[in-house]
């Protein structure tokens, strides 16, 4: 592992722990924090309503909740992470989504089909590059959520890169059998790839506390 990446991973782990601990000590999990003070969770509503958009570095995210066939039964909701302006002004591309349980522990990262977000579809290589720059900054009560998300992206950088490359491989395989527009708009295909997240185990492993 390159030294730069190693330092970044430690910093990311420290940020994840610091933010989540601070919120938890105030009685709040990440799901509740993501709802930015809302006491009720309305299906499909964006939290925050106008998303967190950092125009300076082209990062955008929001949290919401809705059912899906592939949704884990214990999922509370999920973040959608975007990179803006990669394919021209006002364009947005979906980097990944991260689902949480009701206590706010991450459950899975996943990639979606194009129709789900109406994104400008880009190949994995470009998205992986953009992931490194995902550093949304905001003020107010969502500032720690933005910091935590950026840290999670760095902590799981390798897994996310693999997830996006697998997405492209799966889509390429299907494109051999159907037109691109049909595939990208196929309502039966929402989640293309996903990977489970066990954050406590990942942190324990990094801290050298994992059981062997």
């Amino acid at each position, binding site marked *: 592992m390159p030294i730069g990446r*190693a330092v970044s991973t430690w910093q990311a*782990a420290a940020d994840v722990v610091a933010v*989540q*601990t601070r919120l938890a000590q105030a009685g709040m999990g990440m799901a509740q924090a993501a709802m930015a003070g809302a006491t009720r969770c309305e299906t499909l509503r964006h939290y925050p309503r106008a998303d967190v958009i950092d125009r300076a570095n082209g990062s955008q995210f929001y949290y919401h909740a809705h059912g899906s066939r592939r949704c884990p039964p214990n999922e509370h909701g999920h973040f959608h992470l975007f990179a803006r302006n990669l394919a021209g002004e006002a364009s947005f591309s979906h980097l990944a989504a991260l689902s949480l349980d009701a206590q706010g522990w991450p459950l899975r990262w996943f990639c979606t089909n194009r129709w789900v977000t109406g994104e400008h579809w880009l190949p994995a290589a470009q998205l992986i590059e953009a992931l490194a720059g995902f550093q949304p900054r905001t003020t107010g009560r969502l500032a720690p959520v933005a910091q935590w998300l950026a840290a999670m992206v760095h902590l799981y950088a390798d897994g996310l890169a693999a997830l996006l490359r697998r997405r492209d491989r799966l889509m390429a395989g299907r494109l051999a059998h159907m037109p691109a527009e049909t595939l990208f708009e196929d309502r039966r295909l929402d989640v293309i790839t996903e990977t489970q997240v066990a954050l406590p185990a990942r942190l324990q492993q990094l801290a050298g506390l994992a059981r062997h």
Partner: protein
Amino acid sequence: MKKTTRTAQKRLAEALPALLMAASLVAPAARAADTPAAPKPSASAPAKAGNPCGPSNPCAPTQKKKKKSADNPCGPANPCAPSKG
């Protein structure tokens, strides 16, 4: 192992129990299904473009409508689209 890595690992090992302890006491967030249905908008409320996931900014450019699928006639075109900002 380099000294900086050992230090970072030690700090993480020290911080982790506090997180696990505090997180275990966190009450679950209210689920979408747990909450009563959203109140109907008042007559004076600005109408949304029929897309519950569309841009929340009322001045955002209208999103291009996509064809609805046959298997989900009421589904929004892009249920997870971000706000246009």
